[in-house]
């Protein structure tokens, strides 16, 4: 059997196993809630009939195992049950919100990935130059500044002072793409600034490692031009680590979105999650956590698999 296939299958199985354990944890968390949800939620109105109806509605009948299976089966088909707080089906409002969150993360990625890869390569090429040092110190700022600090500085400068962009990203469902891109520019910029430094630093490190290898020195000694050494000799081998860097940061973006959404009042899944946590709306928290955790795990899985496939050494087994 092809060695790549074996490794990928192995990694895939581990990823799916992790995902499964995470669903168990998220489900079990709710089981740990003290007291009976039905009687507690209904309060004064609790009698035999209402409790039975409530149990039916919120999937509280049967053993733990039965409930887990029906919850998981529902979640897999996009049916997350009913919100405890407002009694609406969760899938009604979570779908659009998730799409919004993914849109914002993709927007930020579309800005940050090209900049990070090009700047990281420049940093590696001109190692030790002023540009390279600026790159290194910007990483310090990125790991030190809380997300909301960056967000409020951007708001103060671009929204309050210059008035170029709105400080609230309250996009409607039927907003056009242009309006969407305009209104979510500041949140996307905030996310970009958060991940950009990491990506640049990691890209730079990946290429620097390669440039130290003997075959690059050989290429130099043959008299090949500098850009050609980078583009033809180094880049194909740098692809695997760079793809890995990008996928890992996308996973980070998906989670980093939570705070940024709250700052800009953007109607995304993070906002739903934060509201649900403060209302202790357990079923909604479950659904949102499941979507976030699954996306995060799947992106990490994708990062690993892509870097396995992009590793040219595995293509030619000895």
């Amino acid at each position, binding site marked *: 059997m092809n060695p790549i296939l074996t490794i990928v299958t192995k990694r895939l199985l581990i990823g799916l196993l992790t995902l499964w354990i995470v669903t168990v944890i998220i489900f079990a968390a709710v089981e740990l809630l003290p007291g009976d949800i039905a009687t507690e939620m209904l309060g004064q109105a609790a009698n035999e009939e209402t409790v039975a109806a409530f149990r039916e509605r919120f999937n509280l009948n049967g053993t733990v195992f039965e409930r887990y299976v029906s919850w998981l089966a529902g979640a897999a088909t996009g049916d997350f049950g009913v919100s405890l707080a407002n009694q609406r089906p969760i899938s009604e409002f979570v779908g659009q919100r998730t799409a919004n969150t993914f849109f914002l993360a993709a927007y930020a990625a579309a800005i940050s990935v090209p900049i990070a890869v090009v700047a990281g390569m420049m940093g590696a090429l001109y190692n030790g130059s002023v540009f390279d040092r600026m790159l290194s110190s910007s990483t310090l700022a990125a790991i030190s500044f*809380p997300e909301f600090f960056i967000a409020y500085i951007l708001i103060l400068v671009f929204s309050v002072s210059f008035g170029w962009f709105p400080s609230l990203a309250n996009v409607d469902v039927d907003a056009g793409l242009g309006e969407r891109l305009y209104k979510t520019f500041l949140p996307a910029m905030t996310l970009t600034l958060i991940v950009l430094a990491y990506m640049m630093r990691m890209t730079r490190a990946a290429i620097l490692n390669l440039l130290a290898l003997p075959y690059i020195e050989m290429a130099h000694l043959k008299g090949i031009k500098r850009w050609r050494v980078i583009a033809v000799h180094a880049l194909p081998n740098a692809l695997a680590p760079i793809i890995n860097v990008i996928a890992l940061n996308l996973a980070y973006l998906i*989670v980093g979105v939570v705070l940024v959404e709250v700052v800009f009042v953007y109607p995304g899944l993070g906002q739903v999650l934060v509201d649900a946590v403060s209302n202790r709306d357990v079923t909604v928290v479950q659904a949102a956590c499941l979507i*976030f955790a699954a996306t995060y795990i799947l992106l990490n899985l994708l990062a690993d698999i892509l870097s396995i496939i992009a590793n040219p050494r595995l293509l030619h087994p000895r």
Partner: protein
Amino acid sequence: MQNLIHHLRDAPVSAWIGMIIVAFYAIIALFAPLLAPYAENVSIGAQYQPWTAPHFLGTDALGRDVLSRLIYGARNTVGIALLTTALAFTLGATFGLLAATLGGWFDTIASRMVDVLMAIPPLIFALLILTITGTSVAALILVIAVLDSTRVFRLSRAVAQGILTMDYIEVARMRGEGMFWLIRKEVLPNAAAPLIAEFGLRFCFVFLFISALSFLGLGIQPPTADWGGMVRESAKLISFANFSTWQTATFGLAPLLPAGAIALMTIGVNLIVDWVLHMSSGLKE
């Protein structure tokens, strides 16, 4: 001690800046009641006063003195973050060192548990648990400490495993030294530098994490003065900022002050961490 003074004399400028920042915060946190002109939670005037004496940074929505709350915030925010980090560190380092020294089934079980905990993004996990426990300071400290200890576990286990392959460990084992003696006398002293650097990094992470949760309204609860919470409370003011006069411009700075306090603290710690890491890696310039 001699060694420490020697290292301090050779410390680069960036490390000194970091140490001055951290010392500054430590003094403010320790002597908060002496330094703050007003009490933490007492309304002492009209709301939203401008930046003039006697309220040098104005007052907030409830008429409390912002400067005093910033000073008390240092004590609350940094104190809770430090406690959480210490707990996470004790937990993670103990299990990590034990896993490396004992090996076998203990190592396997502990490592697999950490793998699963690390597969879920920490913010999402923390929000899930805080829904169940409710938002209290005790729950906050425990949840974040457990989540963060996974990172410490990974590092201390890896570092200890490297040390345990050394010859002097072999000699000590043959001499018949017990496991705790090994950890205390051989492993810990050799693992100190990377662990100290890790403590700084973890502190930054925990500090930002708690501030983020407080900002979301799910961390340290009002009326306790806390920087993340102060950003949340004053966030709406930013849209009233007006750069025509200095006094109206200060509205825009209201959420930036506590947020900047958080940023500066993290920068200071990171500068020191960089220096410690640099020293421990043996790269002397």
